[in-house]
C-alpha cells in the first residue's frame, strides 16, 4: 500500500497470484461496521468448507481398513468439466475465490478450516456459523453404500473432534447416511450431545422416501432430543435435470426440486402430525419456491383431502411452522414479491439467515439487514435470534465486536450512540 501525501490517497495493486479471505471481504467488513453488527448476534446457518483439503485427516477416522486404503489412494472427489452433473459453480474462474483459497496462507494453529472460517465470519460480522461439507453433499449419490456409510461416520467423527470441539463459534448439523436407516439411528445415538452438534442433516439429492418406516426411529430420537432435521440441497444426477445443457438450469431448478419433493412427501405422509415436536429446516433453495408450494399444495388439499387423512390443517399452515434458510435470496426486481414471501412464510420467526459462503451465490447479512420492509427486531430475529432460539445457542461475541462496542461506548452514549443487544 502506497500513499500519495498530497491527497491522502492510498494505492494498491490487484494481484490474483495470492489470496486472502480477509482482504477479499474487506467491503463486507465495512458494511458490518457501518450497520453496527457488533450490537447483536448473527448466526449463519449454512456455510461450507472444502473437506477435500482435510481428507487425509478424515480417512484416519475410517474404520473399514479397505475403505480407508481406497479413500486415501483415490481422494474424495474428482472435479473436471466432464462430471455428470455439469457442475460449473466457478464460472470458468470468474469467481476467483475458488482457485484463490488454495493459495491462502494460514498459521500452523489452529486447524486451517478454523482459521478460514474465522476470517470470513469476522469480515461479515457473523458470530456463529453452521459449517457443512461441500463435495460430501453428493455422497448420497455414490452407488457404493459402504462408501457412503463409512465416509459419513469418518467425516462426522473428524468434524466433532478436530473442529467443533476446538471452536465454539463453529457448529454443524451432522450428515445422516440416509440410504441406511440403521446407520442414521447409530449416528444420532453416537453424535447427539457432542459439542457443536446442533442438529442433523440429510442431503436432499437422494432417492429414499422420507416416510419410509425405517426412518421413524430416527425422527423419534431427534424429536425427543429437541434436535432439528435439515434438508440441504445439492447438485444431483436427477434424470430430468439432465435435459439442461447448462448448469444455469441445473442449479436454478435442481436446488429447489429436491427440497420441494421431500417437503411435499413430508406433508402428505402426515409427518408433522406424527412428530409434532420435530422441527425441519429447508436449506439452500432460496425462498421463491415456498409460496409456490404453499399455494399449490393447498389447492390440491382442498380437492384431494381423502388422500392425506393424517393432515388436520392445510399444507400451508404446516409450512408456516417450518424453518427456511434465506440463501440464495431472489432479489432481482421483485421487492413486492419478496415482501409477500416473507409474510407468507412467517419470516419474522421462521426465517434463518444463511450465507452459503464460500460458494458462488453467497449472501451477506446485508441481504436481510437492508430490507426496508423489516423492522429492526425482525432483522435481528432473522439474522440470529431465530437460530439462537431454535438451536438453543449460547451468545458468543467475538473480540473484534467487543472492541467496537467498547469504542462506541467510549464515544459516549450522550452522542446518541446505538443500543447493543445481547
Amino acid at each position, binding site marked *: 500500500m502506497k500513499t*500519495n501525501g498530497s*491527497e*491522502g*490517497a*492510498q*494505492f*494498491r*495493486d*490487484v494481484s*490474483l497470484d495470492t489470496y486472502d479471505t480477509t482482504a*477479499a471481504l*474487506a*467491503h*463486507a467488513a*465495512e*458494511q458490518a461496521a457501518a450497520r453496527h453488527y457488533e450490537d447483536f448476534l448473527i448466526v449463519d446457518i449454512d456455510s461450507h468448507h472444502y473437506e477435500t483439503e482435510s481428507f487425509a485427516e478424515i480417512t484416519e477416522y475410517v474404520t473399514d481398513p479397505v475403505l480407508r486404503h481406497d479413500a486415501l489412494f483415490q481422494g474424495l472427489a474428482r472435479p473436471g468439466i466432464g462430471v455428470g452433473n455439469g457442475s460449473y459453480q466457478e*464460472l*470458468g*474462474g*470468474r*469467481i*476467483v*475465490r475458488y482457485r484463490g483459497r488454495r493459495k491462502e496462507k494460514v498459521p500452523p494453529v489452529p486447524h486451517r478450516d478454523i482459521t478460514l472460517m474465522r476470517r470470513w465470519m469476522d469480515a461479515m460480522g457473523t458470530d456463529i456459523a453452521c459449517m457443512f461439507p461441500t463435495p460430501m453433499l453428493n455422497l448420497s449419490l455414490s452407488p457404493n453404500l459402504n462408501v457412503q456409510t463409512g465416509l459419513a461416520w469418518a467425516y462426522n467423527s473428524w468434524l466433532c473432534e478436530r473442529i467443533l470441539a476446538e471452536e465454539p463459534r463453529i457448529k454443524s448439523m451432522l450428515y445422516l447416511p440416509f440410504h441406511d436407516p440403521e446407520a442414521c439411528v447409530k449416528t444420532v445415538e453416537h453424535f447427539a450431545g457432542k459439542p457443536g452438534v446442533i442438529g442433523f442433516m440429510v442431503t436432499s439429492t437422494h432417492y429414499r422416501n422420507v416416510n419410509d418406516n425405517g426412518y421413524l426411529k430416527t425422527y423419534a430420537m431427534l424429536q425427543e432430543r429437541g434436535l432439528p432435521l435439515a434438508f440441504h440441497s445439492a447438485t444431483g444426477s436427477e434424470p430430468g435435470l439432465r435435459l439442461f445443457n447448462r448448469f444455469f438450469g441445473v442449479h436454478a431448478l435442481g436446488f429447489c426440486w429436491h427440497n420441494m419433493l421431500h417437503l411435499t412427501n413430508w406433508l402428505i405422509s402426515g409427518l408433522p402430525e406424527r412428530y409434532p415436536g420435530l422441527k425441519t429446516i429447508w436449506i439452500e433453495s432460496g425462498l421463491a419456491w415456498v409460496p409456490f408450494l404453499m399455494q399449490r399444495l393447498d389447492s390440491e388439499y382442498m380437492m384431494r383431502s381423502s388422500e392425506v387423512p393424517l393432515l388436520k390443517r392445510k399444507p400451508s399452515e404446516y409450512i408456516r411452522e417450518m424453518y427456511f434458510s434465506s440463501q440464495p435470496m431472489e432479489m*432481482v426486481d421483485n421487492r413486492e414479491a419478496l415482501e409477500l414471501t416473507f409474510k407468507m412464510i412467517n419470516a419474522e420467526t421462521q426465517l434463518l439467515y444463511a450465507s452459503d459462503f464460500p460458494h*458462488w*451465490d*453467497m*449472501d*451477506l447479512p*446485508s*441481504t436481510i439487514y437492508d430490507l426496508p420492509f423489516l423492522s429492526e427486531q425482525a432483522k435481528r430475529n432473522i439474522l440470529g435470534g431465530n437460530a439462537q432460539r431454535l438451536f438453543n445457542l449460547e451468545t458468543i461475541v467475538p473480540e473484534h465486536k467487543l472492541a467496537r462496542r467498547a469504542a462506541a461506548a467510549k464515544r459516549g452514549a450522550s452522542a446518541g450512540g446505538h443500543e447493543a443487544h445481547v
Partner: protein
Amino acid sequence: MPEIEVCKNNELADGAVRIVRVRNLEVAVIRHGGKYFAYHNYCPHQGGPACEGVRMPQVVDRLDADGRFLGQGYDESDMHIVCPWHGYEFHLSDGVNVSDRRLRLKKFQVVERDGGVYVAI
C-alpha cells in the same frame, strides 16, 4: 475535481489494476489494450470489490444460418469487468451491467498528461 496521479505512463502492465482509495472511496484504474479505464470499485449487487476479479470477453453462442448451435466463442471487442464475489459483469467500455442496463459502475475520467496517468475523483 481533484486529479490524483495514479502511475507513470506504461508503469501499469496491460491487464493490471491499481486501486486508489481516497477516504472511503475506492476507484479502480484498469489498463487494457493500451487504454485506461477507471471505475468505482463497488458492485451495485452486494457491494463486492467489482474490479478486483478478472476481465473476460463477452461469450457468444454461435448459430448457423438455420439457427443450429455450432458452439461458443468470445467477442474480444466487448470485454467485461467481472465482480469476483458473484460474477456480475459490466462492460469495460462504459461500466454498464451486461444483464441490466439500469445497473452500472460509476465511471471516472482518466487523463494522460506529461508522462503521467491521472484520475479525476
